């Protein structure tokens, strides 16, 4: 019995250690994500932009469910680069995850969508009104709390009303009247606020008081140290992908309409709105850090250097 346990342990150990062995070829593993704000990644993958910059690089794309799964994959060594909103990135960094922001990817309008003409301020939500947003600690959650602090002086004002729902479920809930508000991002923000019956009560930018980057790319310190060339090639690829979107609209729409299975006209309307701003700069880091630290989401007041490469 004991003998078997030992053998079993050894086997499991070998099995797991086999998984994490590094290979000689420079490999880069990136999480593939859906959503308008991640469009440059899709272009980079489909057009093989990184492979063209660095023909020796082995590029692997992984599909993962959500932010938490991406962070865990990065931690377990299965992923080198993960893209997400600034707050979930900071939460991980704060807990000691050895990674930093390598690049921004996109800025996009976020906001709280409510039924038209019903609300004029955040105080107006009734006792039983519910507001849907993706998950606690998400950029949507933090921005709403910021809005509550800025407008009403109490970041926890709406906490009792918050309901965690995925974007599509949240949109259904809003349209069916099950919730009174949905704090969301494109394309759902566009789809909802385009309807006459709904309007944006407060935008993310207003909540924060300044423009901010929506999606950033985090890279492990290990990858940064081990593969300086590939790291720079990757940044170059991000920039080229962003340029590709603005320069080759037609091909971009061909690629993305296929991937998102969406009509080209509709996609064109959503992707090329002026508010959708793809770019590598990272804005709004400081206000996020200080707000999240002040409200207990972060244990430490992280410095810029500890967060950015």
């Amino acid at each position: 019995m004991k003998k078997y346990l030992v053998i079993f342990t050894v086997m499991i150990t070998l099995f797991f250690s086999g998984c994490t062995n590094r290979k000689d070829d420079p490999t880069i593993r990136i999480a593939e994500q859906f959503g308008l704000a991640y469009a440059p990644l899709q272009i980079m993958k489909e057009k093989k932009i990184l492979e063209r910059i660095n023909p020796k690089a082995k590029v692997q794309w992984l599909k993962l469910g959500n932010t938490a799964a991406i962070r865990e994959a990065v931690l377990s060594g299965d992923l080198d680069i993960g893209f997400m909103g600034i707050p979930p990135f900071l939460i991980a960094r704060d807990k000691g995850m050895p990674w930093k922001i390598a690049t921004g990817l996109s800025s996009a309008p976020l906001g709280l969508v409510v039924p038209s003409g019903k609300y004029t301020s955040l105080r107006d939500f009734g006792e039983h009104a519910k507001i849907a947003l993706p998950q606690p600690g998400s950029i949507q959650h933090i921005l709403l709390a910021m809005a509550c602090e800025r407008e009403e002086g109490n970041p926890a004002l709406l906490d009792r009303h918050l309901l965690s729902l995925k974007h599509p479920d949240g949109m259904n809930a809003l349209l069916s009247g099950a919730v009174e508000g949905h704090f969301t991002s494109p394309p759902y923000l566009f789809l909802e606020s385009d309807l006459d019956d709904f309007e944006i009560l407060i935008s993310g930018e207003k909540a924060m008081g300044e423009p901010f980057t929506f999606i950033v790319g985090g890279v492990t310190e290990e990858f940064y140290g081990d593969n300086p060339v590939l790291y720079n090639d990757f940044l170059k690829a991000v920039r080229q992908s962003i340029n590709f979107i603005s320069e080759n609209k037609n091909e971009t729409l061909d690629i993305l309409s296929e991937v998102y299975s969406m009509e080209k006209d509709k996609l064109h309307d959503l992707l090329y709105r002026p508010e959708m701003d793809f770019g590598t700069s990272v804005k709004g880091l400081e206000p996020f850090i200080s707000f999240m630290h002040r409200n207990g989401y972060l244990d430490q007041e992280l410095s810029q250097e500890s967060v950015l490469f």
Partner: protein
Amino acid sequence: MKIRFLLWPAAFILFWQLLYLLEIFPPLVFPSIWEILRQTGADLASGELIKGTLYSLLVIFAAFIPSLIGGFLMAFLSVKFSFSERITETAAALAHPLPGIALLPILILWTGLGIHIIVLIVIHSVLWPFYINIRSGFKDVPRLWLDFGKNNSLNGREEFLYILLPAAFPSIFAGVKIGWARAWRAVISAEMIFGTIGSAGGLGWFIYNKRIFMDTPGMYGGVFFLMLIGLVVETFLFRKIEKRTAIRWGGTHVSS
């Protein structure tokens, strides 16, 4: 029995700690047993873990009662009337394999948002195993025992109370056991998808939050606590009941 009961958890803890010491996984995703214990202790002391567990238990309880009643009614009707059997059998065949989570959008559309959604999902996941087991329990009662009842002029009520119910008990009890496991699965996964941020939440929400805020030791603590509940209920409740009933009666429904 007592020793075996402790052996597996002990082996598991040793194995966990060994993996931790080998540093195969980064400690941020694979913390040591002591960190897990410390964080679990803190979550117990703050009442967060207990509250979440009680909350989930309350949801399960709220779902069990109507499910048992519904399962009994449906089984009873389908044993009595063949047209009702056709309806419930079709409903069970269609609905049983459907994961409760798949119903979430429809439930929100029809009933609005609230804690009742999770209760409904749990009801969905336990009602069908209840019904199927209760029905087969009733249907499988040997004719011999019913004949014995007829021989002694039992009326309908007596036949139900003194023959059908005890005869079907092992099967009904197996249904309750399946229901209990399914209920936990449903409540945990529903809470992870659909949670209320500001107010109270169950154990699933607790685990989900720990994961989102990367409190990994706390997350494992929640998972282990969940397993502990399962182990305790299985060992100290289900096994005991089975020893007094199905096993003593030489029943055929001991497993599952």
